[in-house]
């Protein structure tokens, strides 16, 4: 684990949500070098909510796997960006869900080109009179 950010990810992973959020609120005001690892931790903790919301919303709109993955990545970024400036967020999970819905439903969002799916030809079966089953 050579990346110092990953070392800090592991350090903060041992703390409760309340502890991480208290540290994050403090870091926003006083220590931005400490703020970034805390933002990472908060977004990582919200990753399941983001994935779930993007997948569910995206399925309804016919997103491809690639579209969903890009929407998840964008939501993670937007959440991190908002948490960098706004310590008044009450529920990070709720915000993550809201941002995921906004990202997926963005009317200007570009989608992967759809590839036409060709169905397999139906097998042509003939009934042979007098044949015996083997």
């Amino acid at each position, binding site marked *: 684990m050579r990346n110092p*950010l990953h070392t800090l990810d592991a350090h903060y992973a041992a703390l409760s949500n309340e502890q991480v959020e208290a540290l994050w609120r403090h870091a926003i005001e006083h220590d931005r070098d400490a703020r970034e*690892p805390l933002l990472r931790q908060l977004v990582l903790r919200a990753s399941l909510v983001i994935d779930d919301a993007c997948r569910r919303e995206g399925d309804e709109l016919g997103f491809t796997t690639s579209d969903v993955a890009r929407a*998840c990545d964008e939501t993670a*970024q937007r959440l*991190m960006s908002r948490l960098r400036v706004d310590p008044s967020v009450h*529920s990070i999970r*709720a915000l993550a869900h809201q941002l995921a819905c906004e990202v997926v439903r963005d009317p200007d969002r*570009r989608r992967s080109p759809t590839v036409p799916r060709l169905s397999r030809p139906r097998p042509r079966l003939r009934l042979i009179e007098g044949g015996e089953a083997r």
Partner: protein
Amino acid sequence: MSAVERVFLEALEDLRAGREEPVERYLQRVPSSEREQLADLLASYFAAQQGPADARANAAVYERALAAIDRVTASAGPAGVLPGMLTELSRTRGVKRRELLEQLEEQLEVPPRARPLLRRLYHRLESGAVPGPGLSRRLLAALGQTLRLPPRELEAASEPLGPPHALQAAQAFGRGGQTRALPDATPSEGEESPTDPELLAVYDLFYGGRDA
């Protein structure tokens, strides 16, 4: 039934009917003193809606989120995480650099002869070679419009960062942290300030400071 319970039930009805509104709209319907309680209820509901805990699926989601975050934060420097953010947001939104630059040229009304300079300086910004404090609010607002981010978030992302470090709980609940002086917006090597007024106007978008 309290206001929190009533709004929470309305939110559940909306969710079930597929007509949910942004979470903040529900929060606005209760007194500010009760918003945290409602937010916790909604968060618990969303958390409970997640699929069964599949350790492998969770690990895959975590790994992907980690990779996305790493792409933005790993190369933080004199322009903070902004360079990584610009690259990553362009990728996730499917905006090519050429398109982004064309939108910047239009929004900032850059004359044709100054466009090569804008492109060069933008490339330097994406490469992490432009100090964050030198970026003008006009440029950040134009980037925000293209990438759908509030300018204040881009401004915060562009703050220079040093090596990351851990914050101890005692610091959060007791002593204040240290504040660090911002580096100035002095151009790094390789970019001379032009004398031509049209080129200088573009140069100042990147090196002139917030009010340029």
